[in-house]
């Protein structure tokens, strides 16, 4: 599967929902808008010539400099990226899919950004999405059971965010 031709084909099918691509990186990726994610994922899995039936991993990356000096030099605006790594058992090819989200919904600190769940397409996404919700704070809509998975249910905050602060104490246990 060659890079540009593949993106052009997807663009024809999904129009402006394919928002970008990068072929210079070691693992090339394509970027999709949050609205078009589910439709694209369904297509990627069901189209026989692609058949991405195996979801390796879902990751969220928080882009934020807490240091003001560094923030001025940063080449990007603060945002959160959700990265999907797909693989096809049949064709033995892989794909990296990215979705860019705001760090907070409507720029209101504390309001988690929302993204549609793909757990009905790949069952493994269920736990991966729960983990991302727990650690990086992304709210997956339509997820069947969106609860914390690694941290206790009453934990405050999302540890993998760059501006996360360790709690001073938790149920009488000293934190910092």
């Amino acid at each position, binding site marked *: 599967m060659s890079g540009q031709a593949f993106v052009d084909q997807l663009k024809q099918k999904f129009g402006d929902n394919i928002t970008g691509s990068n072929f210079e990186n*070691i693992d090339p990726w394509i970027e999709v808008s949050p609205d078009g994610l589910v439709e694209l994922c369904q297509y990627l899995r069901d189209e026989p010539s692609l058949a991405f*039936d195996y979801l*390796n*991993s879902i*990751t969220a990356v928080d882009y934020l400099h807490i240091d003001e000096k560094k923030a001025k030099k940063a080449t990007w605006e603060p945002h959160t990226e959700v990265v999907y790594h797909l693989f096809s*058992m049949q064709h033995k090819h892989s794909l990296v899919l990215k979705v860019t989200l705001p760090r907070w919904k409507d720029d209101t600190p504390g309001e988690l950004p929302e993204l549609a769940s793909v757990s009905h397409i790949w069952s493994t996404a269920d*736990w991966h999405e729960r983990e991302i919700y727990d650690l990086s704070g992304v709210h997956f809509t339509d997820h069947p059971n969106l609860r914390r998975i*690694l*941290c206790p249910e009453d934990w405050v905050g999302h540890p*993998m965010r760059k501006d996360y602060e360790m709690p001073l104490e938790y149920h009488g246990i000293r934190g910092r």
Partner: protein
Amino acid sequence: MSTTVDDPREIEFDVRTDEMLVNMGPQHPSTHGVLRLVLRTDGEIVSEVTPHMGYLHRCAEKIGENLTPRQWVPYTDRMDYLAAMNMNLGWALTVEKLLKYEPPEKGRHLRVIIAEMGRIASHLVGMGTYGLDLGSFSPFLYAFREREKILDLFEEACGARLTYSYITPGGATADLPAGWLEKCEDFLTQFEPMIAEYHTLLTTNSIFIKRTAGIGVMSREMAIDYGTSGAVLRGSGIDHDLRRDGEEIYTAMYDGYAFEVISQQDGHYPKDHEYPPIPQEAILGDCWHRFYVRMLEVIQAIDLVRQGIERYRTAEGDYGEPMKLTTKLPKGEVYLETECPRGQMGFYLVSEGDSIPWRLRARSSCFCNLSVVSELSRGCLIADIPAIVGSLDIVMGEIDR
């Protein structure tokens, strides 16, 4: 005074048991680490299983964002402490992929030898403790006795017995000491005939077959859908092994090595005339098959180590120097999965051009393998739960972040 019942269903209703919640764990002998399973049972029948993990939570990912890649190597040890060598290797290759670095020939063979020895050691624990879960004690002792000999070899190579940090980005921390290869060969010669003994004690043991065959059957579609990997995936009959199908940087390591992926095709395993027959009760994808795949992989690993030793002897040059502690990472992001004994272990590394990663993520095989438990165990007996969880060969250290 006797009572008569007109409708027999009424009796059935009368003796019906109540639904009950049973806690299994957090510390159960059949799990390596702390895992709590909440079972919803009706009598002995399990209707729902909810795994709860996160009791370790060692912040490995967060620490990784504050250390350089070489400083993080010891943390990979502590994730899957039963196959720490393979974890080191996975991380080393991920960093090398980002740096576009290729280790020298000799280092490549050294890595194959060490990684496959690690696989044997890990499968021995998996096999031994699985026997223990099902009430068979002797194989557990035998397996640990053999594993100890591998640990002795590892200790000689790197000085540690559990957390090695031996394979690092750039190569390995030291070359194999003089005389090590001979000792390794001696071990293999002594160990190979032992495997028949394990087959007698477990694989063909009728109690063992009764406890595992036809239990926890996972179909091909389910195995792929849940993203399972390693022996769990191949136990369902899927012909997929990253050592052959993975990314080039990893498969290049096994370039020129002769090996077959262990998975059942048309009712047969590769070279299975040499091994005990598949029992009639066994269904593809059940606990027995997952166990059997692991056993065959031990034999395969012995063969690979032998090939590696041969190549290592004739390879010229250096084994590869570890990269500097504070090497600047180029800007970019990589994801790499390697075939660890427990399955595909993936590392995702995002670099913004500093010497420490911007984001580091570990995608662990056990995490995905464990997520199947609730679906596999629906409708089985309580006694089968250890059999199912044990057959997935889970190490909790790998699941926690």
